[in-house]
């Protein structure tokens, strides 16, 4: 068996995952490479406490799915972020169920982050302006936006992560940009630019 340390430096993610099919323990090198980054993303989405659980789950799921990894992608980050997105969503769903139960006791304003505690974590950490803009988005739109803005994925990588064609991502981003522009600018459809005429 090849030691994790020897494996980790030389191979790209794809080769590493390929090797882990025969040598499962070498998968740990993938954890060593990307765990901090996935944890950061999870912490931004769900807060530090949940992020610990989420990160562990992401790599366990990834390990079990390693045989289906598309070797055409040398970088495993989009794949890991895709798994992370679904794990985050699962937690969000659990949070929301609990919230709906709580809401009967203490109704909260609909249509705001207050309704969803997991997302509220995100909101609390953000500037009010950005948090407000996020409220204008659906959860799926937030997933896409934050994969691009926080995980720095390209459109193609975001498509891979979300399991949709890149054309779909482009189309969604097209609409998302308009939404975000409106939400951020409110009365300024031209983003940050100064008025063109009069």
């Amino acid at each position, binding site marked *: 068996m090849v030691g994790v340390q020897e494996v980790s430096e030389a191979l790209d993610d794809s080769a590493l995952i390929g090797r882990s099919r025969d040598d499962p*323990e070498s998968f740990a090198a993938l954890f060593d490479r990307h765990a901090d980054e996935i944890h950061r993303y999870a912490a931004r989405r769900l807060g530090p406490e949940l992020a610990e659980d989420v990160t562990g789950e992401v790599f366990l799921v990834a390990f079990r799915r390693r045989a289906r990894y598309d070797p055409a992608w040398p970088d495993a980050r989009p794949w890991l972020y895709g798994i992370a997105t679904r794990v985050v969503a*699962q937690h969000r*769903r659990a949070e929301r169920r609990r919230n709906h139960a709580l809401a009967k006791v203490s109704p909260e304003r*609909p249509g705001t982050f207050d309704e969803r505690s997991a997302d509220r974590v995100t909101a609390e950490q953000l*500037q009010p302006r950005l948090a407000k803009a996020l409220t204008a988005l659906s959860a799926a739109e937030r997933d896409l936006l934050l994969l691009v803005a926080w995980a720095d994925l390209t459109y193609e990588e975001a498509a891979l992560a979300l399991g949709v064609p890149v*054309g779909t991502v482009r189309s969604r981003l097209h609409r998302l940009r308009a939404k975000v522009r409106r939400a951020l600018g409110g*009365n300024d459809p031209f983003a940050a*630019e100064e008025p063109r005429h009069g």
Partner: protein
Amino acid sequence: MDEEFKEFADGRPAVPPYPPEARFRAREALMREARRGRGLRLPRFGWQAVAAFGMTVTLVGGVAVALSGQNGQSPVAGSSVTRAAAQFFPELRPRPGQFILIESDTMYASFQAGEDGEESRHLYRTHRKIYRSVDGSADGLLYIEGRPPEPWPGRELPAVAHDWKGSGWNRLASCPGRMGDQRDDYAYLSGLDAAALRALIRRDAPPGKADAAQQAFDAAAELVRESYLPRAQREALFQEIKAIPGVTEADGVADSAGRRGVALGLPASDGTLRQLIFDRGTYSLLGERATVVDARAAEAPEGSLLAHTAQLNVTVVDRLPEVDSPDGDDSCEGPAESASPAPTETAAPAEDAPTEDVPTETAAPAEDFPAAEPTPIPSESRPEVPAEDFPVDESASPTPAGPMPTPTG
């Protein structure tokens, strides 16, 4: 990265580092799993959980919204009311290569958080002209002109409401060859029957959830707003929206130009009833309206209007107007898609488009168009979702089935 997203990127929250103990535990769990090959019981995830939270919040996409007629405080009315809808919305015969031009007046809610975190609200108004390629083969253009803002009902007009004045042009990237089944151009949509349109508006809806209705309603609104479709598709979409659970129909609802039509409305989580107002005879969208039905949620008096629009004109033009350096739209940029046919990049419209709007009534019979331009959906491979890893969530129930209208035409 787009300017809109960059602001989020720059604003990403600082988070504490992965605690070493937690990191060690996670790695050990992974190693145990690796040694064992299998074993640890994990929570099971629904793949579609990602989409299951499509709850619509507040103001959606600039748009949207609508409201019921019984409140009667529509600010409008005028001589234009007497014009028949057919005058506003004649049956058109757009051909590939042409552009559909739609002019509209809009009023939507603006929420802004200032430096101090203090939120201000008002209603912003615009006049819009949108040019979209008939077959999605070329970029479009959008002109937006600011109109005097209105105060949020029950509040004073904030100073920030006056920050934006003037007008400007935006290029609308078309991304030909890359849209796949996300296409929303005339050529593509005019080839869809009622069942396909229904699948289209419901495809992103989380099954069996209350949010599913809102998602479908919003998706349908996206298709009819600033859009022109053949009558068969207009009527089919009308019927599909009407079939969405919770949607109510109301007659005599006025758009912001004072024209009355039949409204299909759905209460939204922002405390408003959102209505899409259609001409009864042609199923053309007249406008939208959002009326407060829950004062607490909306933070505005019940019955007040938070959105009101009117689509004023729909015409077909041969080419785009000449515009000096419109604001860009780089949403088609990025690495080429490997799995699908090479994208066709089109020239930016501004530089080589000759002169003014040239409204042209074309002579081709409407029926010819869909047949002449089948516009196949590019097939793109979707990653396989192994059922054993991401089983369907047990709590999810099938999308409610509604009556299926028969397309006419």
